[in-house]
């Protein structure tokens, strides 16, 4: 039996000491989607042999008969040479395995069907999927999808225990008298506003990040009271619409994020379509229900680095214990913008690359405006170094970070840490149908504040799925460091010598 299944019988099986526990948290839908489909014909006599031999837990008894196969756990064709291949071992020839034809209509080039399925698997079990399901890269044909680690050949991974490998990163490196905030993994949550997602998803994110000692972000849409218990793990955003921004919200938190731009719609404002402005959302944003809400672009009070500094000073004055993060997108001069933010006094520069997620954006912007994050990381990291200020800035990046491998690659290219968003939503079973903006919102209850649809998400369930995903990521990150002979994620920053690009000689 593998570790994932052990934890079903006893949570201590996968719990790290002092770490959040992984608990198996299956799909909330009756028919989970996997790479393979296993069918059991009427010939089955419920002899139970398949349940005895399958190490992946595909087959189980349900009383006197066999339960429907949990086929999303099946490793498919890769199993054919195993002694425990159920199809061959079944005395009645009642079992068949085939590729799931639904893969054809699932996912896209960046989030391939297999990346979706593997993320669901990790969110359920806290483990990487067995078999041949791709969980590291997508199929976009560039950037992270063409970059791979080159682990030193012939080197055995270091045999140090997990807890001796550090994934901790500091967020304040300026020595400016403000708190030394640290997070236990190089990942925190991106801004998703109340209105763009449901309250239960917001709270689940806060709980999961609290469990992993990191942060989630309110986005621009107010600070619901239900988040107050998690204040120390919440970043609140000040964006151009100032929706829900109050002195109190700024004073509650340890990090305030100025959002100048978003990678999915660089240079354009935010947009919450009218249908999603429910009475509760309107109240939070001090707006009128049913009316579409636009955040203008840009901040009309900021047209220079000096103006920008005034903004940063304003926040620092209102909350003397807060760090300031500046979230920008990736124009040609993104390196200059980063240096400008340093001089304005920011603690964190957060680059959001052009292929990032959103609740709604014009397709023309998502596809065409600003550069992918892979380029921006290299540009900014190098420029900050050349300017002699790299060690004082925390460089956080986002926009297309889907997997633990993306996290590690982004850091090796020069980032200190990353921000994720879509992968969290996938963990709570987003299917990337891209219809978040329309009507009452998400048909799966994630990107919606519709009172009925929101009920589709249970807070505890979503919290655990996120905890599990990060447990799986953490394990992969530690494994990568071990294979590189490193003990600390900070050693990996800018280590491009550990990477190779398939398109280069």
């Amino acid at each position, binding site marked *: 039996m593998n570790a994932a299944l052990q934890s079903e019988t006893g949570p201590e099986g996968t719990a790290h000491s002092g770490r959040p526990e992984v608990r198996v948290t299956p799909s909330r*839908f*009756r*028919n989970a989607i996997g790479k393979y489909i296993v069918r059991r014909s009427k010939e089955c006599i419920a002899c139970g042999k398949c349940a005895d031999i399958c190490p992946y837990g595909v087959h189980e008894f349900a009383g006197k008969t066999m339960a*429907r196969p949990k086929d999303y756990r099946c490793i498919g064709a890769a199993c054919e040479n195993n002694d425990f291949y159920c199809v061959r071992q079944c005395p009645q020839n009642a079992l068949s395995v085939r590729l799931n034809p*639904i893969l054809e*209509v699932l996912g*896209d*080039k*960046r989030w391939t069907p297999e990346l979706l399925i593997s993320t669901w698997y990790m969110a359920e079990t806290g483990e990487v999927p067995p078999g041949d399901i791709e969980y590291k890269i997508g199929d*976009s*044909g560039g950037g992270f*999808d063409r970059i791979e680690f080159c682990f030193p050949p012939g080197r055995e991974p270091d045999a140090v225990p997990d807890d001796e490998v550090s994934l901790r990163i500091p967020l304040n490196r300026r020595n400016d008298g403000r708190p030394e905030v640290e997070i236990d993994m190089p990942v925190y949550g991106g801004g998703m506003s109340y209105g763009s997602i449901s309250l239960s998803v917001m709270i689940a994110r806060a709980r999961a990040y609290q469990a992993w000692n990191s942060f989630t972000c309110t986005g621009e849409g107010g600070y619901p009271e239900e988040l107050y218990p998690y204040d120390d793990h919440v970043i609140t955003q000040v964006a151009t619409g100032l929706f829900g921004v109050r002195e109190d919200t700024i004073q509650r938190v340890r990090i305030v994020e100025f959002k100048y*731009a978003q990678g*999915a719609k*660089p240079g*354009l404002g935010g*947009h919450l379509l009218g249908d999603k402005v429910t009475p509760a959302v309107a109240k939070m944003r001090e707006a009128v229900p049913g009316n579409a809400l636009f955040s203008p*672009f*840009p901040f009309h009070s*900021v047209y220079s680095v000096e103006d*920008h500094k005034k903004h940063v000073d304003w926040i620092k004055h209102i909350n003397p214990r807060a760090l300031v993060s500046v979230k920008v*997108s990736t*124009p*040609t001069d993104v390196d200059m*913008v980063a240096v*400008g933010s340093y001089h304005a006094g920011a603690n964190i520069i957060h680059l959001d690359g*052009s*292929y990032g*997620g959103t609740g*709604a*954006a*014009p*397709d*023309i*912007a*998502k*596809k*065409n*405006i*600003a*550069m992918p994050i*892979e*380029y921006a990381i*290299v*540009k900014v990291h190098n420029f900050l170094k050349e300017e002699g200020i790299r060690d004082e800035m925390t460089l956080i990046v986002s926009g297309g970070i889907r997997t633990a491998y993306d996290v590690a690659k982004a850091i090796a290219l020069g980032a200190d840490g990353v921000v994720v968003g879509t992968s969290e939503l996938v963990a709570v079973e987003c*299917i*990337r*149908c*891209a*219809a*978040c903006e*329309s009507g009452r919102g*998400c*048909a*799966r209850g994630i990107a919606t504040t519709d009172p009925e649809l929101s009920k589709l998400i249970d807070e505890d369930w979503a919290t655990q799925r996120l905890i599990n995903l990060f447990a799986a990521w953490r394990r992969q990150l530690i494994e990568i460091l071990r294979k590189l002979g490193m003990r600390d994620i900070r050693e990996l920053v800018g280590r*491009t010598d550990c*990477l190779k*690009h398939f398109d*280069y*000689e």
Partner: protein
Amino acid sequence: MTDTIDSLCKNCLRCVQSCPGQVITKVANAEYKRLGNSYWTPDIIRRQWFQAETGRIPVSGAGYGGPFSGPGFDDMWTDMSEIVRPTRDGIHGREYINTVVDLGRSLRYLRFDAAGHVVGDAPKKIEIPIPIILKDLPLGSLSESVFLAMAEAAQAMDTFMIAPVKEWKPYLEPYKAHLIPLLTEAEIDTHGELIRGVRIIEIQLSDETAARLSRIRAAYPDVLIMVRVRLGERSGEEVLALTRAGADILHLCADRDGNVESGNGPRFVKDVVRSVHMRLVEAGCRNEITLFASGGIAMAEHVAKSIIVGADAVALDIPLLLALECRLCFRCEAGLSCPVEVENIHPEWGKSRILNLIAAWRNQLIEVLGAMGIREIRRLRGEVGRAMFFDDLERETFGRLFGKRKKRESVGN
């Protein structure tokens, strides 16, 4: 249960995942996958249909799901302004962004007489409110209704439609202020009256064109002369010669998929337009002439990108057919019937669909301009500094880290 209404499906897969009998599944529509060709993909076609029907720009949630970059127009990104360069909030009407372009020549310099008065007249110019004219269609089950729909749309937008003289029938007379007759040089001599009635004519380029331009200009002083240049290896020199010979507008045409034949395999229209534009810049005469690009312009972003690489405006063809629900099955080219009977459209319906499409494209242009902080589409021309190219970014970032990039497959489609 009755049949599913597949066109309403949002692909949330709730039904697939919740069905107790596991009897619902979903497959891609084979007919959809057969739409168009490798350049005019089903996705492009579907998007133009949506815009022609609704006049809305495509908006969606989640991130971009397409490839990292691609051939043709997909190997460049447009810029945005951040902090130190203000963007323009054009799309919600809070700031005005101008999409007017001027057609015609500009003087290189002014001349003054002894008394300090300007000598000579400024060349005639025509303004159009959008950087788009409608081009004669390269295929399609065409009819009077189709031409009427296009002419009506051109008139409504106060732009132009190119009409080959052989299609020129009396029913088009009311629209002639917005029509550009396309003529061979031989036809110029036989269509004097028609030419005098319009504002712009287009001539098919021949070896004689440059030499004959001044004679045509003298015969029709009030008409702007546009020359259609089929892009090829000699385009740079041809365009320079025509500019010096006094053409007002040059129309640079690639094939319908945006390809241009050259000795080393096909080049893409965007790259050829960029080199032609640069040839004129180097010769110091780019500002004297108006350049149109056409061929392979399939989406709104292609208009912005064509202008960034050096065109003043574009001429649209196949997207107009798509607005009329063409499926690009290419049966008409084989002389077969049109499955959607494009020839039987109602002109009013066709006009509205074309207007919707181009309105949506204009809004998207404004999004792109606003993000860049550019308030004038005329300022966008040749602004390659406000764009990012795949090859440059790769060289500047990964090239420094990983050495030499392996040769890419050719850019053609």
